[in-house]
């Protein structure tokens, strides 16, 4: 695999897990990209909104556009990808990517982009687009992902990649 898109760590859950954390992220890349495919064990018929926490304590701010198949909305509440609900169609998991450019800089706040979906072939589906901001001038060294409700279930996957622009 090219050094421009390198797998830092892959996490495939073997059991139900309350949250997933990537820690000690090396500062050797230019950007980070996090791919998540996840489902929770709560009874939601479609899905829920996960949350991010950076560097152990930093909750980001954000702006999103959200569509559920019949309506679209925007606000500042959701800042992280979706996970499928435990009551959604069996064996369906969410799909999302989160891109964090220049995550290791120590001069300015970090921004990121999220593109995520929950599609269950049911009566409702979710699509979420997020612009996020992490208010720290420190390098991003850890990312914690927590489900919006319940816990992440077995077979949820979390892949963190580092990208170099040279």
């Amino acid at each position, binding site marked *: *695999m*090219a050094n*421009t*898109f390198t797998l830092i760590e892959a996490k495939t859950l073997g059991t139900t897990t309350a949250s997933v954390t990537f820690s000690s992220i090396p500062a050797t890349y*230019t*950007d980070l*990209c996090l791919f998540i495919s996840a489902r929770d064990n709560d009874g939601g018929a479609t899905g829920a909104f996960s949350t991010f926490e950076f560097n152990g304590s930093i909750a980001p*701010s*954000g*702006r*999103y*556009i959200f569509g559920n198949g019949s309506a*679209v*909305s*925007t*606000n*500042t509440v959701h800042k992280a990808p979706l996970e499928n609900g435990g009551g959604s169609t069996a064996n369906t998991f969410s799909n999302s*990517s989160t*891109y*964090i*450019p*220049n995550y290791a800089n120590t*001069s*300015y*706040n*970090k*921004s*990121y*982009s999220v*593109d995520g979906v929950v599609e269950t072939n049911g009566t409702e589906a979710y699509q979420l*687009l*997020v*612009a996020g*901001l992490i208010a720290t001038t420190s390098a991003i060294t850890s990312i914690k992902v927590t489900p919006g409700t319940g816990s992440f279930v077995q077979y949820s996957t979390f892949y963190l*990649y580092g*990208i*170099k*622009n*040279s």
Partner: protein
Amino acid sequence: MAAGSTYTPIATFTVSTAQASYTFSTISGSYTDLVLIINGGTTTNNQFRLNVGNGSVDTGANYGDTQIYGYSSTVGSGREVNSTNPYLGVASTTNSTRIIEFMNYANTTTYKTLLNKGGDLGQSQYDASVVVWRSTSAINTIQINTNAGNISSGTTLSLYGIAAA
């Protein structure tokens, strides 16, 4: 977004002094798609815009774009036709991220389409858009500019090539 050995850096540029535009020139046609990552902003509340071309930047009325956006509690959609400088989204002094994908950019048969997404919390807006360049020429020149003012110092623009095989 594709991963693996096909994701190749082409060029990156960091704005050292605020400037009105930046142009990637003589882009190789050897990839299938291009991805451009913009991380930064503008010197005041503005919009990122773009032009593309073959050999030079096309500033003719040869572009169309359609946007969806969310601002405050409002969602909406806008559209430009016969544009000379299509919309890429809002920007401000707040650091923001924008991802632009140019599909099949080197073909000489069809008009070119790009997908764009990003948001700016300085203007509290998220937007996504599609832009068409009405030309069958290959894209080998991409210019990022603004509707007014400058691209901020410290903004990075990184261009990657993705090969399908």
